[in-house]
């Protein structure tokens, strides 16, 4: 591509008038999250050479989500009770559906409560998510994994020199690598698959440590049965990863995945991305890892995790559907059920949080409410009523206008199509709303409870007709 595309790429774009809207409803078909389509290869320069990636491949690969709500998610909050974790695990299984889109979830194994939680979750009998463990890189900890009867455990193999030298006080890369490999060997001997967590890999010395270490892990894996071979979790511990092409290592998500997948030979099914949100890139980075050859995306419910959090699991679910162009057995409405449960146990979810916040599909501007009233697709991302059990709503303020009031009233009564009440009939309520601001100088939005009282008072004929059937 020229460095001056404004000059070299200019061309005429002929105008053909149309009297019919082109709603692009193959991509935005409303019954699904909008599909993600590709129209060509992605090119990334690796060691100075152009490498093509076929983005269509992600539609066929067995990409999936792994959960760390009970591990990383729990590091950022007071512990969940056993009952809460068992219930959340049950909901994750329900959300995942029969195809194991949420393939695994990991548990601490250190306390009696950790082990009881694990036992009770497994006793539910769900095939997915499979329960795995998480331990420090300590040979003695494999006893815990064995006693818990787990087939796989994550173990910390911190990879940046910040950790190797400054935290763990190893004398050299070799000293560190030998120590890690001893633990991996212990895992093999315990008949447990090790999942090596390359902690802080986005500011690690790739040529000096990461690549030779993973090469060695792959050589070790060749000596054991396939079901024991090492998995690699790519840990963007500080959120330094960058998803767009052209970025150099160690921050480039595309290059990280390529190097491990193609140069070290870690198969896609044994590669996992684990991110953090310190620079607001966590979700894009996770999906990007999928795109470039990593099959597993590690996530937490509502992105809650250490410091700024992890890839939000529900966001990964939506991108999964967008990429696969199919629900694949996922029960998306359970996202709302989980959010309601989390609120009931005092888990904070901001009102504007995507997909589950109280106001994620609530509009306040009257002109938007007018659009919603005419065709809800205009201001709603997809059929949130069906997919998330959350109809689009309006929140009333002085900006809502009569359109907003009419939309609220129709949603309140659950009226569809020709049954919907036009805004002329809502004028008394609209006037009351405006007077709150113009006359009474109100500064807060109007609650649903207040509005319900006013509809009953000012539209008694409609209240009598429709309220009983709510």
């Amino acid at each position, binding site marked *: 591509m020229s460095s001056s595309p404004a000059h070299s790429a200019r061309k005429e774009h002929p105008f053909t008038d149309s009297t019919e809207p082109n709603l692009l409803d193959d991509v935005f078909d409303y019954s699904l999250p909008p599909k993600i389509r590709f129209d060509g290869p992605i090119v990334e320069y690796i060691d100075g050479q152009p490498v093509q990636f076929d983005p269509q491949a992600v539609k066929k690969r067995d990409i999936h989500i792994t959960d760390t709500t009970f591990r990383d998610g729990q590091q950022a909050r007071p512990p969940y009770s056993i009952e809460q974790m068992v219930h959340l695990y049950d909901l994750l299984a329900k959300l995942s559906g029969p195809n194991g889109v949420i393939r695994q979830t990991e548990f601490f194994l250190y306390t009696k409560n950790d082990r009881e939680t694990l036992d009770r979750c497994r006793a539910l009998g769900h095939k997915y998510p499979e329960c795995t463990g998480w331990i420090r890189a300590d040979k003695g900890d494999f006893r815990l994994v064995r006693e818990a009867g787990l087939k796989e455990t994550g173990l910390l193999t911190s990879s940046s020199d910040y950790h190797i030298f400054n935290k763990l006080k190893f004398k050299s890369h070799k000293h560190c690598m030998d120590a890690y490999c001893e633990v991996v060997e212990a895992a093999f001997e315990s008949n447990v698959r090790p999942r090596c967590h390359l902690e802080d890999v986005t500011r690690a010395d790739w040529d000096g440590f990461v690549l030779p270490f993973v090469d060695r892990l792959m050589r070790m894996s060749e000596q054991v049965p396939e079901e024991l071979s090492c998995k690699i979790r790519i840990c963007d511990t500080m959120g330094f990863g960058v998803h767009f092409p052209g970025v150099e290592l160690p921050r480039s998500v595309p290059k990280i995945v390529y190097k491990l997948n193609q140069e070290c030979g870690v198969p896609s099914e044994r590669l996992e991305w684990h991110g953090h949100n310190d620079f607001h890139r966590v979700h894009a980075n996770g999906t990007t890892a999928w795109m470039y050859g990593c099959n597993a995306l590690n996530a937490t419910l509502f992105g809650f995790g250490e410091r700024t959090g992890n890839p939000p699991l529900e966001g990964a679910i939506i991108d999964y559907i967008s990429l696969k162009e199919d629900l694949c057995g996922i029960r998306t409405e359970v996202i709302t059920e989980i959010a309601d449960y989390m609120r009931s146990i005092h888990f904070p979810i901001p009102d504007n949080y995507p997909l589950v916040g109280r106001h994620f599909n609530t509009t306040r501007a*009257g002109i938007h409410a007018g659009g919603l009233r005419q065709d809800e697709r205009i201001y709603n991302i997809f059929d949130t009523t069906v997919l998330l059990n959350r109809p689009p709503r309006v929140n009333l303020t002085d900006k809502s*206008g*009569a359109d907003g009031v009419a939309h609220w009233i129709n949603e309140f009564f659950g009226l569809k199509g020709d049954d919907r009440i036009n*805004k*002329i*009939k809502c*004028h008394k309520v*609209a*006037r009351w709303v*405006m007077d709150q601001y113009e006359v009474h100088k109100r500064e807060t939005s109007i609650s649903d409870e207040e509005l319900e009282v006013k509809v009953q008072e000012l539209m008694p004929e409609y209240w009598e007709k429709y309220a009983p059937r709510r």
Partner: protein
Amino acid sequence: MASVLERVVRVTATVLRLDPAEIKPEHRFSADLGAESVQSIELVAMFEEEFGIEMNEDDALSVESVGAAADFIAKVCEAQGVKV
């Protein structure tokens, strides 16, 4: 009996709190008489009540001036069999 235009002027004056004598047929509700969004809705609702008719929301709200409103309402009354 007052004409349709006189009744439209009276309702308009009441809703917009204006002196009826100042309202002319050529006056536009929004640009000349200062009707705001909710007041436009109230005007249509009050015209419906005054004349005992039902108006199409979008058609009614697209009428711009007092005189045009009187003409529009007269036609709706005729179509709905309401004597004016």
